[in-house]
């Protein structure tokens, strides 16, 4: 209901174009009843502002943008990758070095396995008469007596294995098979008759060969490179080990801690 108390509100809304059709009809009916207020409606229509289209923004070009090129981040955690690559490289180098060391230590081991081409131990020049002629019972007793020595173990093996041992003896003197003479076997038979008990063995002037422990060499020393490069590799290994310890120490220090970052009104809490 439009009255003299609220007609200005309707006139303002009419100027704003916010009246419904029936409200417009009601306003026009009110003005028919109060024609002296028609001029006021014209004033409300007049105070509507008109945009000045001549005013333009001259610096549009400064506002234009281009989509930033997307950066494809490869190897974001390159430190991890490089550390892993370094460790893998060291492992490969170490493996090659160990392989070379093994080849150097036992060069005749593989050829000695060839039974057909290797000479039997009996035919070794200068060797004492063959041990194969010894009585089996005596041989068992002999084995029991010298079971702790490599010499006896080699005696107890089959002929084919003995052949390999003979060849290896030329390259590894500390494992050389001592010849068992007929005289020694005869003494053994005499001293230990077949009573069921293990015979007592007494060999004159028989000394067990001394087995010298192989000298442990660092894999780094076995590398087929010069000393300068070995020193360099040692330094790299030391640096990697030091870095790993520092990272482990840092990780241990930051455990059970939290970091709070405040950005304007928001807090970012990082817990470790």
């Amino acid at each position, binding site marked *: 209901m439009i009255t003299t108390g609220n007609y200005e509100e309707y006139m303002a*809304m009419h100027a704003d174009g916010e009246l419904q059709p029936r409200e417009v009809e009601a306003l026009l009916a009110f003005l028919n009843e109060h024609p002296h207020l028609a001029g006021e409606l014209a004033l409300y229509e007049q*105070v509507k502002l008109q945009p000045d289209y001549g005013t333009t923004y001259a*610096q549009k070009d400064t506002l234009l943008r281009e989509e930033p090129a997307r950066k494809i981040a490869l190897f974001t955690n390159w430190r991890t990758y490089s550390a892993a690559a370094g460790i893998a490289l060291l492992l490969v180098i170490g493996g090659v070095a160990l392989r070379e060391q093994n080849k150097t230590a036992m060069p005749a081991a593989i050829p000695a396995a060839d039974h057909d081409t290797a000479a039997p131990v009996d035919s070794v020049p200068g060797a004492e008469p063959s041990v194969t002629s010894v009585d089996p019972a005596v041989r068992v007793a002999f084995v029991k007596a010298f079971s702790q020595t490599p010499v006896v173990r080699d005696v107890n093996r089959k002929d084919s294995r003995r052949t390999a041992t003979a060849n290896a003896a030329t390259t590894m003197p500390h494992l050389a098979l001592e010849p068992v003479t007929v005289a020694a076997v005869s003494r053994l038979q005499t001293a230990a008759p077949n009573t069921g008990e293990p015979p007592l063995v007494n060999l004159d002037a028989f000394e067990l060969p001394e087995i010298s422990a192989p000298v442990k060499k660092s894999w780094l020393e076995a590398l087929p490179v010069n000393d300068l490069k070995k020193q360099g590799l040692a330094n790299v290994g030391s640096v990697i080990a030091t870095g790993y310890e520092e990272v482990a120490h840092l990780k241990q220090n930051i455990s059970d801690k939290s970091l709070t970052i405040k950005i304007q009104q928001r807090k970012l809490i990082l817990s470790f």
Partner: protein
Amino acid sequence: MEANDYNICVKQLSDALFRFACKSTGSPDDAHDVVQNSFEVLWQKRKDVEAGKAKAFLFQVAYRQSVDTYRRKSRISYVEVPEQSYALPDPGLRKVLDNALAQLGEQARALVLLKDYEGYSYEEIARITDLTEAQVKVYLHRARKLLKDYLISVEHVL
């Protein structure tokens, strides 16, 4: 909104935004800053703003910045736009209305500009200014009445 949509907004809306900011702040320099900042905000939030709602978003940002700028500087004088830019056949009436507009508070002035310059409805203005529709209706009514009274007083003087 992609970069292409943003650039279309620049070409289509920067003039209207500049006119609104000029009248709201009363200073072309401040209006320039308002336009720059408004489009910067739009660019930063372009992923969250749909292309169809970019205009309302821009005017919302510009409205807040204009009101803040005006309040911060506490301007009393109102900088007039150059005379040659007027397009209406009655420059006298436009000048009177500009002066009358300068008498309004910064919020009422922005409401009138959003209504008259951009043709937004009460509901749309309420969304842009974070006011209720009833508040927009009341503020605009008061502003219209003040403009009308100013116009009548000037006519009496002339």
